[in-house]
């Protein structure tokens, strides 16, 4: 299975990365080589093998449902490009 140029444009859109036609062509060749390497996995028989999602077979630890963090929104919002009245500003999405 190889990637088409349309695939590259589609995944760039899904990944929310603007890509020009020239960039798509350039990145297409490199992705093709990467997938040729990755596709080696297809020939491996993994019937019945339990996927290993993690280095330790551990279960997600649970904790009591209570607030443990202090309110630091003023400090955190200083990092944002645009803020007003404690809200993050983005271009209008609803008319």
């Amino acid at each position, binding site marked *: 299975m190889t990637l088409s140029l349309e695939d590259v444009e589609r995944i760039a859109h899904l990944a929310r*990365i603007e890509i020009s036609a020239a960039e798509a062509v350039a990145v297409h060749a490199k992705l093709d080589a990467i997938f040729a390497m990755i596709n080696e996995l297809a020939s491996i028989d993994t019937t019945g093998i339990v996927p290993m999602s993690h280095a330790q077979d551990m279960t997600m630890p649970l904790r009591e449902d209570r607030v443990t963090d202090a309110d630091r929104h003023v400090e955190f919002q200083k990092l944002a*490009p645009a803020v007003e009245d404690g809200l993050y500003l983005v271009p209008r999405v609803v008319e």
Partner: protein
Amino acid sequence: MSAALDTVAGLSKSLAAKRLSSVEITTALLERIEHSQPVLNAFVTVDRAGALAQAKAADAARARGAAGALTGVPIAHKDVLMTAGLRTTCGSKMLENFIAPYDAFVVDGLKRAGTVLVGKTNMDEFAMGSSNETSFFGPVKNPWNAAYVPGGSSGGSAAAIAARLVPASTGTDTGGSIRQPAALTGICGLKPTYGVCSRFGLIAFASSLDTPGPFARTAEDCALMLNAMAGHDVRDATSLARDREDYTRDLGKPLAGLRIGLPREYFGEGIDPDVASAVDAAVGEFRKLGATTVAIELPAVKLSVPVYYVIAPAEASSNLSRFDGVRYGHRAEAYDDLLDMYKKSRAQGFGAEVKRRILVGTYVLSHGYYDAYYLKAQQVRRLIADDFQRAFAQCDLIMGATTPGAAFEFGAKSDDPVQMYLNDIFTIAGNLTGAPAISIPCGFTKGGLPIGLQVQANYFREAQLLNAAHQYQQVTGWHACAPGQWP
């Protein structure tokens, strides 16, 4: 002042004996860092004022009798670890001006231990790279030869140790990003067991693989650093609740009876002859120390690279979706609407390698491909981990070269991602299994470039691993060699 260029253990003794103050050591190293910066570019940010203030505080703590082994010892952090109040860039334009509001767990641990933070080290952008060529702040140069890469992604942290700019530093290892640059710069780099050091405050690349760890010139120094970096942390759900360990506790134990596994797959074709003979000689030293060797097989390990290049990009594409130009990081100046703002901010903020990996990850996780790629890769990951468990039934440690070759020249692999990825062929398995591994210097190529020996152990065997490296360093001198330009 050459006394300031000592190892962590050496500085610790000099500080305790009042032969040196932390202010004296820090001042000397800051000068050395500033002098090196135009040549090596190992640092993204140097915090002279902050470092001197911390050094004064460390000296005061020592005068009150409140000093530990690391009090007053200058260190540097890889710029992927958040440091409250001091810029954390991840080597990216995306975070060029990002000042973290809190410390990473390992940063906090080393701060509590009394270390002095001199600055943040340069790295491949978002820790994606094996040569430091993808940093937005320009590449780090290898102190042994500035025409050669220092390895990556923690290239700045490694180069800083090799050039004697600091005695110890932190790195993070997702596919070899501690061990590979340690090998290429002739120093020690330890990737602990996954879960031993909390990932809290480590800007995530691939969460199931990312592991913080120390760099230093000796195994003993790595043990001292790990003592301050390890520990349980409820803020990282994958941090392991275990009793505290003293990682120096085994240093000094004889190696008689130690069983070393030599995987057939690590000694085959494709290994540089100078690297192969250095590794053989190192294994010979371990035999002289009383270890025995056993031939083992790791048949699935050859699939590490394709498995990694599915799992790591998949997790990266998810983790890096947080950089959208809304809450922090780069936002494009001009855009049409929200979607356009996301796309332009990310296109401008990320470099080519990061974008490429996000695209690979987005594809393998996209509708209809999840089972064929991500699930398949996780199944093969299990096969690789099973190989290691079978091997560790026959041996205590596994040895081989850290990398198939020594450092390469700038530009040699930067146009061919697959060739670049193959540099990590021996290190990736350690991340997939999560078991610990260290790279220690074991010789030089005919061209004078350092060679690394990788020693792998089973889960939680860091103390044994560090002692094996320590015993080797008691009878060899490779770890004490300094680059000619940085004596």
